[in-house]
Protein backbone atom coordinates (compact mmCIF):
# COMPACT_ATOMS: atom_id res chain seq x y z
CA UNK A 1 0.00 0.00 0.00
CA UNK A 2 2.90 2.35 0.73
CA UNK A 3 6.28 2.07 -0.97
CA UNK A 4 9.04 4.59 -0.44
CA UNK A 5 12.22 4.06 -2.42
CA UNK A 6 15.38 5.98 -1.55
CA UNK A 7 13.39 9.05 -0.57
CA UNK A 8 15.43 12.04 0.41
CA UNK A 9 14.18 15.37 1.70
CA UNK A 10 16.18 18.47 2.50
CA UNK A 11 14.87 21.70 4.00
CA UNK A 12 17.59 24.15 3.04
CA UNK A 13 20.83 22.59 4.24
CA UNK A 14 19.12 20.33 6.77
CA UNK A 15 18.43 16.75 5.77
CA UNK A 16 15.05 15.76 7.21
CA UNK A 17 14.79 12.31 5.62
CA UNK A 18 17.82 10.43 4.35
CA UNK A 19 17.45 7.82 1.59
CA UNK A 20 14.41 6.23 3.20
CA UNK A 21 13.16 2.96 1.78
CA UNK A 22 10.01 1.62 3.37
CA UNK A 23 7.25 -0.77 2.48
CA UNK A 24 3.84 -1.21 4.10
CA UNK A 25 1.93 -4.20 2.73
CA UNK A 26 -1.87 -4.38 2.54
CA UNK A 27 -3.65 -5.37 5.74
CA UNK A 28 -0.84 -4.50 8.13
CA UNK A 29 -0.73 -2.13 11.09
CA UNK A 30 2.67 -0.58 10.63
CA UNK A 31 4.31 1.55 13.30
CA UNK A 32 6.58 4.45 12.49
CA UNK A 33 8.68 5.37 15.50
CA UNK A 34 11.16 8.12 16.18
CA UNK A 35 11.74 11.04 18.50
CA UNK A 36 10.66 14.61 17.66
CA UNK A 37 12.44 15.76 14.52
CA UNK A 38 13.37 12.22 13.48
CA UNK A 39 11.59 12.72 10.15
CA UNK A 40 8.30 10.87 10.76
CA UNK A 41 5.99 13.76 9.94
CA UNK A 42 8.07 14.70 6.90
CA UNK A 43 7.85 11.11 5.67
CA UNK A 44 4.08 11.13 6.21
CA UNK A 45 3.84 14.54 4.50
CA UNK A 46 5.57 13.04 1.48
CA UNK A 47 3.17 10.07 1.47
CA UNK A 48 0.25 12.53 1.35
CA UNK A 49 1.75 14.82 -1.27
CA UNK A 50 2.03 17.69 1.20
CA UNK A 51 5.81 17.71 1.21
CA UNK A 52 7.72 17.30 -2.05
CA UNK A 53 10.64 14.86 -1.87
CA UNK A 54 14.01 16.21 -2.98
CA UNK A 55 14.55 12.89 -4.72
CA UNK A 56 13.26 9.32 -4.59
CA UNK A 57 9.93 7.69 -5.29
CA UNK A 58 6.81 7.69 -3.10
CA UNK A 59 4.01 5.34 -4.08
CA UNK A 60 0.67 5.05 -2.30
CA UNK A 61 -1.94 2.51 -3.38
CA UNK A 62 0.22 1.77 -6.40
CA UNK A 63 0.36 5.36 -7.70
CA UNK A 64 3.20 7.84 -7.60
CA UNK A 65 2.19 10.61 -5.20
CA UNK A 66 4.24 13.28 -6.96
CA UNK A 67 2.79 12.76 -10.42
CA UNK A 68 -0.59 11.09 -9.68
CA UNK A 69 -1.51 12.55 -6.34
CA UNK A 70 -5.28 12.50 -6.87
CA UNK A 71 -5.32 8.79 -7.81
CA UNK A 72 -2.87 7.87 -5.06
CA UNK A 73 -4.98 9.52 -2.34
CA UNK A 74 -8.41 8.44 -3.59
CA UNK A 75 -8.71 5.72 -0.96
CA UNK A 76 -6.61 7.22 1.81
CA UNK A 77 -7.73 8.71 5.10
CA UNK A 78 -5.46 10.64 7.43
CA UNK A 79 -5.56 11.83 11.02
CA UNK A 80 -3.06 14.26 12.45
CA UNK A 81 -1.87 15.19 15.90
CA UNK A 82 -4.32 17.75 17.34
CA UNK A 83 -6.87 17.48 14.49
CA UNK A 84 -7.94 20.91 13.26
CA UNK A 85 -11.51 21.73 12.29
CA UNK A 86 -13.64 24.75 11.53
CA UNK A 87 -14.65 25.26 15.14
CA UNK A 88 -17.38 27.75 14.30
CA UNK A 89 -19.23 25.17 12.19
CA UNK A 90 -21.04 21.99 13.23
CA UNK A 91 -19.37 18.59 13.20
CA UNK A 92 -21.62 17.52 10.36
CA UNK A 93 -20.82 20.61 8.28
CA UNK A 94 -17.11 19.93 8.85
CA UNK A 95 -17.56 16.40 7.55
CA UNK A 96 -19.44 17.67 4.49
CA UNK A 97 -16.76 20.23 3.74
CA UNK A 98 -13.86 17.81 4.11
CA UNK A 99 -15.56 14.96 2.25
CA UNK A 100 -16.19 17.14 -0.79
CA UNK A 101 -12.46 17.46 -1.29
CA UNK A 102 -12.41 13.73 -2.04
CA UNK A 103 -15.62 12.75 -3.79
CA UNK A 104 -19.36 13.40 -3.53
CA UNK A 105 -20.54 11.90 -0.25
CA UNK A 106 -24.14 11.04 0.46
CA UNK A 107 -25.88 12.19 3.66
CA UNK A 108 -26.45 8.50 4.39
CA UNK A 109 -22.70 7.81 4.31
CA UNK A 110 -22.08 10.73 6.67
CA UNK A 111 -24.77 9.40 9.01
CA UNK A 112 -23.19 5.92 8.95
CA UNK A 113 -19.75 7.25 9.78
CA UNK A 114 -21.04 9.55 12.53
CA UNK A 115 -22.79 6.55 13.99
CA UNK A 116 -19.70 4.36 13.66
CA UNK A 117 -17.56 6.78 15.69
CA UNK A 118 -20.31 7.34 18.25
CA UNK A 119 -21.05 11.01 17.60
CA UNK A 120 -24.75 10.55 16.84
CA UNK A 121 -26.74 13.28 18.54
CA UNK A 122 -23.82 15.70 18.67
CA UNK A 123 -23.11 16.08 14.97
CA UNK A 124 -25.15 19.28 14.72
CA UNK A 125 -23.27 20.94 17.60
CA UNK A 126 -20.50 23.38 16.84
CA UNK A 127 -17.06 21.78 17.01
CA UNK A 128 -15.90 24.38 19.53
CA UNK A 129 -18.20 22.69 22.07
CA UNK A 130 -16.55 19.27 21.54
CA UNK A 131 -14.25 17.66 24.09
CA UNK A 132 -10.80 16.48 23.06
CA UNK A 133 -12.08 12.93 22.74
CA UNK A 134 -14.99 14.01 20.56
CA UNK A 135 -12.64 15.91 18.28
CA UNK A 136 -10.55 12.75 17.99
CA UNK A 137 -13.68 10.83 17.01
CA UNK A 138 -14.61 13.49 14.47
CA UNK A 139 -11.10 13.16 13.06
CA UNK A 140 -11.65 9.44 12.62
CA UNK A 141 -15.02 10.13 11.00
CA UNK A 142 -13.54 12.51 8.42
CA UNK A 143 -10.81 9.98 7.63
CA UNK A 144 -13.39 7.23 7.10
CA UNK A 145 -15.69 9.21 4.80
CA UNK A 146 -13.93 8.39 1.52
CA UNK A 147 -14.19 4.66 2.40
CA UNK A 148 -10.41 4.35 2.64
CA UNK A 149 -8.27 1.28 2.23
CA UNK A 150 -5.31 2.95 3.88
CA UNK A 151 -5.33 5.04 7.03
CA UNK A 152 -2.37 7.23 7.94
CA UNK A 153 -2.32 8.24 11.58
CA UNK A 154 0.23 10.86 12.63
CA UNK A 155 0.44 10.92 16.45
CA UNK A 156 -3.30 10.31 16.89
CA UNK A 157 -3.08 9.86 20.66
CA UNK A 158 -1.23 13.09 21.27
CA UNK A 159 -2.88 15.23 23.95
CA UNK A 160 -5.40 12.56 24.96
CA UNK A 161 -5.83 11.46 28.57
CA UNK A 162 -5.21 7.77 29.45
CA UNK A 163 -8.88 6.98 28.88
CA UNK A 164 -8.77 8.70 25.51
CA UNK A 165 -5.59 6.85 24.56
CA UNK A 166 -7.19 3.52 25.44
CA UNK A 167 -10.27 4.47 23.41
CA UNK A 168 -8.09 5.45 20.46
CA UNK A 169 -6.20 2.16 20.69
CA UNK A 170 -9.46 0.19 20.69
CA UNK A 171 -10.74 2.22 17.74
CA UNK A 172 -7.60 1.57 15.70
CA UNK A 173 -7.84 -2.14 16.43
CA UNK A 174 -11.52 -2.04 15.47
CA UNK A 175 -10.78 -0.21 12.22
CA UNK A 176 -8.30 -2.92 11.32
CA UNK A 177 -10.53 -5.78 12.42
CA UNK A 178 -13.93 -4.62 11.14
CA UNK A 179 -12.99 -2.61 8.08
CA UNK A 180 -9.81 -4.44 7.12
CA UNK A 181 -7.85 -1.22 6.75
CA UNK A 182 -4.12 -1.00 6.28
CA UNK A 183 -2.86 1.39 8.93
CA UNK A 184 0.33 3.40 9.20
CA UNK A 185 0.66 4.60 12.77
CA UNK A 186 3.23 7.17 13.78
CA UNK A 187 3.35 7.51 17.54
CA UNK A 188 5.42 8.32 20.59
CA UNK A 189 3.32 5.97 22.68
CA UNK A 190 5.48 2.88 22.48
CA UNK A 191 3.09 0.81 24.54
CA UNK A 192 0.30 1.50 22.07
CA UNK A 193 2.51 0.66 19.12
CA UNK A 194 3.61 -2.55 20.80
CA UNK A 195 0.01 -3.62 21.33
CA UNK A 196 -1.27 -2.63 17.91
CA UNK A 197 1.44 -2.96 15.32
CA UNK A 198 2.64 -6.07 13.55
CA UNK A 199 5.70 -4.38 12.12
CA UNK A 200 7.64 -1.19 12.85
CA UNK A 201 10.29 1.05 11.42
CA UNK A 202 12.41 3.32 13.59
CA UNK A 203 13.70 6.62 12.30
CA UNK A 204 16.55 8.46 13.94
CA UNK A 205 17.82 11.79 12.63
CA UNK A 206 16.13 11.18 9.30
CA UNK A 207 17.58 7.71 8.78
CA UNK A 208 15.82 4.38 9.12
CA UNK A 209 17.69 2.48 11.80
CA UNK A 210 15.36 -0.51 12.03
CA UNK A 211 12.51 -2.21 10.22
CA UNK A 212 11.08 -5.51 11.37
CA UNK A 213 8.38 -7.53 13.15
CA UNK A 214 7.33 -6.53 16.66
CA UNK A 215 7.09 -10.22 17.56
CA UNK A 216 10.76 -10.70 16.63
CA UNK A 217 11.80 -7.86 18.88
CA UNK A 218 9.91 -9.33 21.80
CA UNK A 219 11.27 -12.80 21.14
CA UNK A 220 14.84 -11.57 20.91
CA UNK A 221 17.10 -12.65 23.73
CA UNK A 222 16.49 -10.28 26.60
CA UNK A 223 18.50 -9.54 29.68
CA UNK A 224 18.56 -11.64 32.84
CA UNK A 225 17.48 -10.12 36.13
CA UNK A 226 19.36 -11.27 39.23
CA UNK A 227 18.18 -10.51 42.77
CA UNK A 228 20.76 -11.15 45.49
CA UNK A 229 21.91 -9.24 48.61
CA UNK A 230 25.53 -9.37 47.29
CA UNK A 231 25.17 -8.34 43.66
CA UNK A 232 28.80 -7.14 43.36
CA UNK A 233 30.22 -10.37 44.83
CA UNK A 234 27.91 -12.49 42.69
CA UNK A 235 28.83 -10.78 39.41
CA UNK A 236 32.56 -10.96 40.26
CA UNK A 237 32.29 -14.72 40.83
CA UNK A 238 30.19 -15.30 37.68
CA UNK A 239 32.60 -13.26 35.56
CA UNK A 240 35.56 -15.19 37.02
CA UNK A 241 33.90 -18.47 36.01
CA UNK A 242 33.13 -17.18 32.51
CA UNK A 243 29.35 -17.45 32.90
CA UNK A 244 28.56 -13.75 32.32
CA UNK A 245 30.19 -10.99 30.32
CA UNK A 246 29.02 -8.12 32.50
CA UNK A 247 26.28 -6.50 34.58
CA UNK A 248 23.80 -3.66 33.99
CA UNK A 249 22.36 -1.16 36.47
CA UNK A 250 23.19 -3.36 39.50
CA UNK A 251 20.18 -5.53 38.61
CA UNK A 252 20.87 -7.38 35.40
CA UNK A 253 23.53 -9.75 34.11
CA UNK A 254 24.56 -10.50 30.52
CA UNK A 255 25.01 -14.24 29.99
CA UNK A 256 27.84 -15.47 27.80
CA UNK A 257 26.89 -17.49 24.73
CA UNK A 258 25.70 -20.98 25.69
CA UNK A 259 25.36 -20.24 29.38
CA UNK A 260 22.06 -20.68 31.26
CA UNK A 261 20.35 -19.26 34.35
CA UNK A 262 20.60 -22.71 35.93
CA UNK A 263 24.39 -22.46 35.83
CA UNK A 264 24.20 -19.00 37.42
CA UNK A 265 22.04 -20.31 40.26
CA UNK A 266 24.26 -23.35 40.81
CA UNK A 267 27.48 -21.26 40.87
CA UNK A 268 26.06 -18.78 43.36
CA UNK A 269 24.49 -21.35 45.70
CA UNK A 270 27.68 -23.38 45.71
CA UNK A 271 29.59 -20.22 46.70
CA UNK A 272 27.08 -19.52 49.52
CA UNK A 273 25.76 -16.38 47.87
CA UNK A 274 22.00 -16.25 48.48
CA UNK A 275 19.82 -16.05 45.35
CA UNK A 276 16.43 -14.38 45.84
CA UNK A 277 15.45 -14.54 42.20
CA UNK A 278 16.73 -15.08 38.71
CA UNK A 279 14.67 -14.79 35.52
CA UNK A 280 14.74 -13.81 31.84
CA UNK A 281 13.12 -10.47 31.28
CA UNK A 282 11.28 -10.11 27.93
CA UNK A 283 12.57 -7.21 25.95
CA UNK A 284 9.92 -4.51 25.62
CA UNK A 285 9.58 -2.31 22.58
CA UNK A 286 10.60 0.61 24.79
CA UNK A 287 13.87 -1.09 25.78
CA UNK A 288 14.54 -1.94 22.16
CA UNK A 289 13.70 1.53 20.89
CA UNK A 290 15.77 3.33 23.52
CA UNK A 291 18.76 1.06 22.91
CA UNK A 292 18.47 1.63 19.18
CA UNK A 293 18.21 5.40 19.43
CA UNK A 294 20.99 5.56 22.03
CA UNK A 295 23.27 3.49 19.81
CA UNK A 296 22.44 5.67 16.81
CA UNK A 297 23.16 8.88 18.70
CA UNK A 298 26.44 7.48 20.07
CA UNK A 299 27.50 6.42 16.57
CA UNK A 300 26.70 9.86 15.22
CA UNK A 301 28.63 11.60 17.98
CA UNK A 302 31.62 9.35 17.37
Amino acid at each position, binding site marked *: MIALREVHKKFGARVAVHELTLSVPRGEIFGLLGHNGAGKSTAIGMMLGQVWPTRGEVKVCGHDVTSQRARALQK*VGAIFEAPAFYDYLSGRRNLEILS*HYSAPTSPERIRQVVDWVGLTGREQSKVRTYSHGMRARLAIAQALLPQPELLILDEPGSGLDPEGIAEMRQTIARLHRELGLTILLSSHLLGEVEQLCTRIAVLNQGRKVFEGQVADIKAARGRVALRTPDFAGATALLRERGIISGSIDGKYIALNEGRTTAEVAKALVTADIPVQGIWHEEQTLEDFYLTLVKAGNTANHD
Partner: protein
Amino acid sequence: MFLAQLTNELWKLFGKKRTYIGFGAFVLAQSAMLILFKYTNWQKHFEAMLANNGYVATEYISALTVALIMVWPQVLLLMPLYVALVGGDLVAKEAEDGTLRMILSRPISRARLLTVKWLGGIIFAAVLVLALGVIALLTARVLFPWGGMFVFGKLQTSSAFSLFEPGQGLALYAFSHLFMVMNAITMLSVAFMFSCFNMKPAAATILALSYLFMNMVMQHIPFFESYQNWFITYHFESWFLVFENPTPWPQIFQSEITLVAISATAFMIGAMGFQVRDIKS
Protein backbone atom coordinates in the same frame (compact mmCIF):
# COMPACT_ATOMS: atom_id res chain seq x y z
CA MET B 1 -18.43 18.73 -7.41
CA PHE B 2 -16.80 22.08 -8.13
CA LEU B 3 -20.02 23.84 -7.16
CA ALA B 4 -20.22 21.83 -3.92
CA GLN B 5 -16.63 22.79 -3.11
CA LEU B 6 -17.38 26.45 -3.83
CA THR B 7 -20.51 26.30 -1.67
CA ASN B 8 -18.45 24.81 1.16
CA GLU B 9 -15.87 27.54 0.74
CA LEU B 10 -18.64 30.10 1.18
CA TRP B 11 -19.86 28.25 4.28
CA LYS B 12 -16.36 28.53 5.72
CA LEU B 13 -16.04 32.17 4.73
CA PHE B 14 -19.43 33.43 5.83
CA GLY B 15 -19.54 31.14 8.88
CA LYS B 16 -16.88 33.06 10.78
CA LYS B 17 -17.45 36.32 12.57
CA ARG B 18 -14.40 38.22 11.29
CA THR B 19 -15.86 38.09 7.76
CA TYR B 20 -18.52 40.51 8.95
CA ILE B 21 -16.14 43.10 10.40
CA GLY B 22 -16.24 44.98 7.09
CA PHE B 23 -20.03 45.07 6.96
CA GLY B 24 -20.20 46.26 10.57
CA ALA B 25 -17.56 48.92 9.97
CA PHE B 26 -19.46 50.25 6.95
CA VAL B 27 -22.65 50.64 8.98
CA LEU B 28 -20.78 52.42 11.79
CA ALA B 29 -18.82 54.71 9.48
CA GLN B 30 -21.89 55.61 7.45
CA SER B 31 -24.00 56.29 10.52
CA ALA B 32 -21.30 58.61 11.88
CA MET B 33 -20.99 60.43 8.53
CA LEU B 34 -24.75 60.82 8.24
CA ILE B 35 -24.99 62.39 11.66
CA LEU B 36 -22.19 64.79 10.74
CA PHE B 37 -23.88 65.71 7.44
CA LYS B 38 -27.22 66.29 9.06
CA TYR B 39 -26.28 68.07 12.25
CA THR B 40 -23.19 70.16 11.41
CA ASN B 41 -22.57 73.13 9.11
CA TRP B 42 -21.74 70.84 6.23
CA GLN B 43 -25.26 71.05 4.84
CA LYS B 44 -25.29 74.87 4.97
CA HIS B 45 -21.98 75.09 3.10
CA PHE B 46 -23.22 72.64 0.53
CA GLU B 47 -26.45 74.59 -0.01
CA ALA B 48 -24.48 77.80 -0.41
CA MET B 49 -22.18 76.21 -3.01
CA LEU B 50 -25.14 74.95 -5.04
CA ALA B 51 -26.93 78.32 -4.79
CA ASN B 52 -23.80 80.18 -5.94
CA ASN B 53 -23.82 77.99 -9.06
CA GLY B 54 -27.48 78.70 -9.76
CA TYR B 55 -29.02 75.43 -8.53
CA VAL B 56 -31.83 74.85 -6.08
CA ALA B 57 -30.16 73.20 -3.12
CA THR B 58 -33.22 71.26 -1.98
CA GLU B 59 -33.30 69.38 -5.31
CA TYR B 60 -29.77 68.06 -5.01
CA ILE B 61 -29.09 67.57 -1.30
CA SER B 62 -30.55 64.13 -1.59
CA ALA B 63 -30.04 60.55 -0.46
CA LEU B 64 -28.18 59.83 -3.72
CA THR B 65 -25.75 62.75 -3.32
CA VAL B 66 -25.07 61.93 0.34
CA ALA B 67 -24.70 58.20 -0.37
CA LEU B 68 -22.07 58.89 -3.03
CA ILE B 69 -20.17 61.24 -0.72
CA MET B 70 -20.22 58.56 1.99
CA VAL B 71 -19.09 55.81 -0.35
CA TRP B 72 -16.06 57.72 -1.63
CA PRO B 73 -13.75 57.53 1.45
CA GLN B 74 -14.89 54.02 2.22
CA VAL B 75 -13.97 52.77 -1.24
CA LEU B 76 -10.61 54.46 -0.89
CA LEU B 77 -9.68 53.11 2.56
CA LEU B 78 -12.12 50.84 4.36
CA MET B 79 -13.05 48.56 1.47
CA PRO B 80 -9.41 47.69 0.58
CA LEU B 81 -8.70 47.07 4.25
CA TYR B 82 -11.53 44.57 4.68
CA VAL B 83 -11.03 42.69 1.44
CA ALA B 84 -7.29 42.49 2.20
CA LEU B 85 -8.16 41.13 5.64
CA VAL B 86 -10.28 38.35 4.15
CA GLY B 87 -7.93 37.77 1.19
CA GLY B 88 -4.96 37.44 3.55
CA ASP B 89 -6.88 34.87 5.57
CA LEU B 90 -7.99 32.66 2.70
CA VAL B 91 -4.97 30.37 2.61
CA ALA B 92 -2.67 31.57 5.39
CA LYS B 93 -5.31 31.24 8.13
CA GLU B 94 -6.04 27.66 7.11
CA ALA B 95 -2.32 26.90 7.16
CA GLU B 96 -2.00 28.52 10.59
CA ASP B 97 -5.02 26.67 12.02
CA GLY B 98 -3.95 23.30 10.60
CA THR B 99 -7.06 22.78 8.48
CA LEU B 100 -5.01 23.14 5.30
CA ARG B 101 -3.13 19.96 6.20
CA MET B 102 -6.47 18.18 6.68
CA ILE B 103 -7.64 19.36 3.25
CA LEU B 104 -4.41 18.45 1.52
CA SER B 105 -4.54 14.90 2.80
CA ARG B 106 -7.36 14.52 0.28
CA PRO B 107 -7.08 14.03 -3.46
CA ILE B 108 -7.94 17.61 -4.43
CA SER B 109 -5.23 19.33 -6.46
CA ARG B 110 -3.66 22.46 -5.07
CA ALA B 111 -4.61 24.45 -8.18
CA ARG B 112 -8.26 23.49 -7.80
CA LEU B 113 -8.26 24.26 -4.10
CA LEU B 114 -6.86 27.71 -4.76
CA THR B 115 -9.33 28.34 -7.58
CA VAL B 116 -12.24 27.49 -5.29
CA LYS B 117 -10.85 29.71 -2.54
CA TRP B 118 -10.20 32.60 -4.91
CA LEU B 119 -13.71 32.40 -6.35
CA GLY B 120 -15.11 32.32 -2.84
CA GLY B 121 -13.10 35.45 -2.09
CA ILE B 122 -14.36 37.13 -5.25
CA ILE B 123 -17.96 36.44 -4.23
CA PHE B 124 -17.22 37.93 -0.80
CA ALA B 125 -15.65 41.03 -2.41
CA ALA B 126 -18.70 41.53 -4.63
CA VAL B 127 -21.12 41.09 -1.73
CA LEU B 128 -19.11 43.52 0.43
CA VAL B 129 -19.10 46.26 -2.23
CA LEU B 130 -22.76 45.83 -3.05
CA ALA B 131 -23.59 45.90 0.65
CA LEU B 132 -21.59 49.10 0.97
CA GLY B 133 -23.61 50.75 -1.78
CA VAL B 134 -26.99 49.54 -0.59
CA ILE B 135 -26.33 50.36 3.08
CA ALA B 136 -25.07 53.85 2.12
CA LEU B 137 -28.16 54.57 0.05
CA LEU B 138 -30.63 53.18 2.58
CA THR B 139 -29.10 54.96 5.57
CA ALA B 140 -28.87 58.23 3.58
CA ARG B 141 -32.52 57.88 2.62
CA VAL B 142 -33.47 57.76 6.30
CA LEU B 143 -32.28 61.33 6.87
CA PHE B 144 -32.32 62.86 3.37
CA PRO B 145 -35.05 63.12 0.72
CA TRP B 146 -35.08 61.40 -2.65
CA GLY B 147 -33.89 63.74 -5.40
CA GLY B 148 -31.30 64.53 -8.04
CA MET B 149 -27.65 63.63 -7.72
CA PHE B 150 -24.90 66.19 -7.43
CA VAL B 151 -21.39 64.92 -8.10
CA PHE B 152 -18.33 67.00 -7.54
CA GLY B 153 -14.66 66.48 -7.01
CA LYS B 154 -11.54 66.18 -9.08
CA LEU B 155 -12.36 63.94 -11.99
CA GLN B 156 -9.60 62.61 -14.21
CA THR B 157 -10.64 64.34 -17.41
CA SER B 158 -12.24 67.45 -15.91
CA SER B 159 -12.63 69.16 -12.59
CA ALA B 160 -16.21 70.29 -13.14
CA PHE B 161 -19.24 68.92 -11.31
CA SER B 162 -22.14 66.97 -12.74
CA LEU B 163 -25.87 66.92 -12.04
CA PHE B 164 -28.21 64.04 -12.69
CA GLU B 165 -31.91 63.43 -12.49
CA PRO B 166 -32.87 60.91 -9.74
CA GLY B 167 -33.41 57.99 -12.15
CA GLN B 168 -30.20 58.59 -14.06
CA GLY B 169 -28.28 59.21 -10.83
CA LEU B 170 -29.49 55.92 -9.35
CA ALA B 171 -28.53 54.02 -12.51
CA LEU B 172 -25.03 55.54 -12.50
CA TYR B 173 -24.68 54.92 -8.77
CA ALA B 174 -25.52 51.24 -9.30
CA PHE B 175 -23.28 51.04 -12.39
CA SER B 176 -20.29 52.54 -10.57
CA HIS B 177 -20.49 49.73 -8.04
CA LEU B 178 -19.70 47.18 -10.72
CA PHE B 179 -16.33 48.88 -11.17
CA MET B 180 -15.85 49.12 -7.42
CA VAL B 181 -16.29 45.33 -7.31
CA MET B 182 -13.32 45.04 -9.66
CA ASN B 183 -11.27 47.23 -7.29
CA ALA B 184 -12.20 44.93 -4.41
CA ILE B 185 -11.36 41.81 -6.42
CA THR B 186 -7.94 43.24 -7.27
CA MET B 187 -7.12 44.03 -3.65
CA LEU B 188 -8.38 40.63 -2.58
CA SER B 189 -6.23 38.95 -5.23
CA VAL B 190 -3.10 40.78 -4.08
CA ALA B 191 -3.72 39.76 -0.46
CA PHE B 192 -4.56 36.22 -1.62
CA MET B 193 -1.25 36.03 -3.48
CA PHE B 194 0.72 36.83 -0.33
CA SER B 195 -1.49 34.43 1.63
CA CYS B 196 -0.37 31.55 -0.60
CA PHE B 197 3.19 31.88 0.63
CA ASN B 198 4.47 30.70 3.98
CA MET B 199 3.43 33.61 6.19
CA LYS B 200 0.94 34.62 8.86
CA PRO B 201 -2.48 35.90 7.71
CA ALA B 202 -1.78 39.32 9.24
CA ALA B 203 1.48 39.56 7.29
CA ALA B 204 -0.34 38.83 4.02
CA THR B 205 -2.91 41.54 4.80
CA ILE B 206 -0.24 44.07 5.79
CA LEU B 207 1.81 43.39 2.66
CA ALA B 208 -1.26 43.87 0.45
CA LEU B 209 -2.13 47.15 2.18
CA SER B 210 1.49 48.29 1.95
CA TYR B 211 1.33 47.69 -1.80
CA LEU B 212 -1.86 49.77 -1.96
CA PHE B 213 -0.46 52.65 0.08
CA MET B 214 2.82 52.61 -1.81
CA ASN B 215 0.87 53.00 -5.04
CA MET B 216 -1.29 55.72 -3.52
CA VAL B 217 1.71 57.74 -2.35
CA MET B 218 3.71 57.33 -5.55
CA GLN B 219 0.72 58.21 -7.71
CA HIS B 220 0.56 61.62 -6.04
CA ILE B 221 4.26 62.42 -6.32
CA PRO B 222 4.64 64.91 -9.21
CA PHE B 223 7.72 63.10 -10.52
CA PHE B 224 5.57 60.05 -11.36
CA GLU B 225 2.83 62.01 -13.09
CA SER B 226 3.67 60.58 -16.50
CA TYR B 227 3.68 57.02 -15.04
CA GLN B 228 0.10 57.10 -13.69
CA ASN B 229 -0.84 53.98 -15.63
CA TRP B 230 1.58 51.94 -13.56
CA PHE B 231 -0.24 52.60 -10.31
CA ILE B 232 -3.09 50.41 -9.16
CA THR B 233 -4.73 53.33 -7.35
CA TYR B 234 -4.98 55.29 -10.61
CA HIS B 235 -7.05 52.46 -12.09
CA PHE B 236 -9.07 52.20 -8.88
CA GLU B 237 -10.46 55.67 -9.69
CA SER B 238 -12.23 54.42 -12.81
CA TRP B 239 -15.47 53.76 -10.95
CA PHE B 240 -15.88 57.50 -10.49
CA LEU B 241 -15.42 58.18 -14.21
CA VAL B 242 -18.94 56.90 -14.93
CA PHE B 243 -20.19 60.19 -13.50
CA GLU B 244 -18.31 62.22 -16.11
CA ASN B 245 -20.14 63.61 -19.09
CA PRO B 246 -19.40 62.28 -21.69
CA THR B 247 -18.32 58.98 -20.11
CA PRO B 248 -14.69 58.20 -20.98
CA TRP B 249 -15.32 54.55 -21.87
CA PRO B 250 -11.89 53.84 -23.41
CA GLN B 251 -10.20 55.00 -20.23
CA ILE B 252 -12.59 53.01 -18.04
CA PHE B 253 -12.06 49.83 -20.05
CA GLN B 254 -8.31 50.30 -20.08
CA SER B 255 -8.35 50.52 -16.28
CA GLU B 256 -10.69 47.55 -15.89
CA ILE B 257 -8.57 45.38 -18.18
CA THR B 258 -5.47 46.40 -16.23
CA LEU B 259 -7.17 45.44 -12.96
CA VAL B 260 -8.28 42.08 -14.40
CA ALA B 261 -4.70 41.46 -15.53
CA ILE B 262 -3.28 42.39 -12.10
CA SER B 263 -5.79 40.08 -10.38
CA ALA B 264 -5.01 37.17 -12.72
CA THR B 265 -1.27 37.72 -12.33
CA ALA B 266 -1.55 37.83 -8.54
CA PHE B 267 -3.53 34.58 -8.61
CA MET B 268 -0.97 32.91 -10.87
CA ILE B 269 2.00 34.00 -8.75
CA GLY B 270 0.20 32.81 -5.61
CA ALA B 271 -0.70 29.49 -7.24
CA MET B 272 2.89 28.91 -8.35
CA GLY B 273 4.23 29.70 -4.89
CA PHE B 274 1.64 27.43 -3.29
CA GLN B 275 2.32 24.58 -5.71
CA VAL B 276 5.99 24.27 -4.79
CA ARG B 277 5.46 24.87 -1.08
CA ASP B 278 5.81 22.13 1.51
CA ILE B 279 2.81 22.01 3.84
CA LYS B 280 3.96 21.03 7.30
CA SER B 281 2.37 21.11 10.73
